[in-house]
């Protein structure tokens, strides 16, 4: 069977069994909302725009925070790989902070910045920047030295070698680091939105949290599904094309 038909069939079957189990009261409707109930939530929340608004708030936080994390992580990684001093200082710091779940920053972030977007950005950035830094560092270190030597005999030097040879050569590593950074940013943001009340906008995590307080599990699961779909879309639109290009160029695809 074709791949694109397998998944919808599988998905439809799961939903049907789920709906039947809930209707027959084998699964308690209090514990698990039915697929149609979740569908009802979607219809309602799309109609009153609450879902789109929350998605917009969350995506804005994610993309902006991630972009800043990227803009800081890539140069930091290059610096760490280039200068021993940076490796011994920033490199060690990055390694340590990467192990810290970034939602741990929430108390300090709220104290420093208040209950606003800056605090959220800070948590998202702390979630993504270190893994991007470490991956860039590792990627540069794994570049075969012969590339830089070949470039030097062709008259390349300094910044040109770094931008045109060492950075592109490290791309397979860097891109997997960017993906990891994205996943960390996404998790950090959800944790922050669920546990921290932010006055400046209601994101998906907060809507999920309200669902919990109102015992509206259809809302909770609906938001969970939206989070999964956004994650999938990000992977397919942002990273898959780059990865496909890398696989084709490097010949690493099967």
């Amino acid at each position, binding site marked *: 069977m074709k791949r694109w038909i397998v998944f919808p069939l599988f998905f439809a079957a799961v939903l049907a069994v789920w709906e039947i189990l809930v209707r027959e009261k084998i699964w308690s409707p209090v514990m698990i909302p039915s697929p149609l109930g979740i569908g009802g939530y979607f219809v309602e929340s799309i109609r009153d725009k609450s879902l789109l608004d929350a998605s917009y708030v969350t995506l804005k936080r994610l993309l902006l925070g991630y972009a800043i994390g990227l803009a800081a992580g890539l140069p930091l990684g290059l610096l760490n790989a280039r200068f021993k001093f940076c490796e011994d200082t920033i490199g060690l710091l990055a390694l340590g902070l990467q192990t810290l779940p970034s939602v741990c920053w929430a108390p300090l972030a709220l104290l420093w910045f208040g209950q606003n977007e800056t605090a959220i950005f800070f948590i998202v950035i702390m979630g993504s920047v270190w893994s991007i830094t470490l991956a860039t560092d590792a990627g540069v270190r794994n570049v075969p030295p*012969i590339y830089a030597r070949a470039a*030097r*005999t062709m*008259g390349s030097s300094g910044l040109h070698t770094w931008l045109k040879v060492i950075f*592109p050569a490290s791309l397979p590593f860097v891109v997997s680091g960017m993906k990891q950074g994205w996943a960390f940013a996404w998790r950090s943001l959800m944790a922050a939105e669920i546990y921290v009340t932010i006055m400046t906008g209601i994101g998906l995590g907060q809507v999920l949290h309200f669902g919990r307080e109102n015992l509206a599990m259809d809302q909770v699961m609906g938001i969970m599904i939206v989070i999964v779909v956004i994650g999938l879309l990000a992977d397919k639109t942002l990273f898959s094309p780059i990865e496909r290009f890398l696989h084709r*160029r490097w010949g690493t695809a099967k």
Partner: protein
Amino acid sequence: MSVDTELLNVPPEKLVVEGVSKTFRTQRGRVHALDDVSLHVREGEFVCLVGPSGCGKSTLLNIIAGLEMPDTGKVLADGKAVTGAGSDRMMMFQESALFPWLDVMGNVLFGLKLKPNLANKERREVAKFYLHLVGLDKFMRSNIHELSGGMKQRVALARALAPNPRVLLMDEPFASLDALTREQLYGDIQDIWAKRQKTIVFVTHNVREAACLGNRVVLFSPHPGRIQEQFPVDLPRPRDISSVDLAKFSTEITRALKRHLKPISAEEAE
């Protein structure tokens, strides 16, 4: 010097290596890679450096390229001291060292893009010319991993030739290729050397290869790396690697190589 040049009608030296020594520190102690090596290469000469591994021939090539600095001694290119790598002395390696993030065309364009005073259209034309020269113009858009070993070395050759360096430094460029491909490339490189008027310094451990390609074969001995003997090669071109004259000539060099090697291996056995 200028009077000598005038009187003898000797063309000026393209490359001058004078009293170059180089020691490496390794975990097992110091390795004396080159000891007081001097070598003069004339414009348009094809010089082959031959010797067993560890005789410092690759190190000397790296020093001429400016990728490494000698401990003592100096290297002059066109009379000017070499202080770093430069596109006037292009290097080719045993591995093609092609960039996998660029396609074939992108690789050949790399050095060209570093040359000012060329429009992008002209650069592409020059790149196409050299890809045609090495017989790969149909593979312009190919990815590097799609090429065979021999094709990769041809692209590497095109990439090295494209910025039109006067000097080509080749470090065992054909060592990892099969015999058939290698033989084709012997023909190609002689052809290019003659047509494009290059000065070539070619490192190999294959005596037959050296005799086939060079105007002069320079024999190195290891521990420490020194020049032992030099052999001018006057055989007519284009030379065939399997010809009898060439075999005779390379036997002579091989004999000299063995003569210089004997005491070394006895020393190593201790």
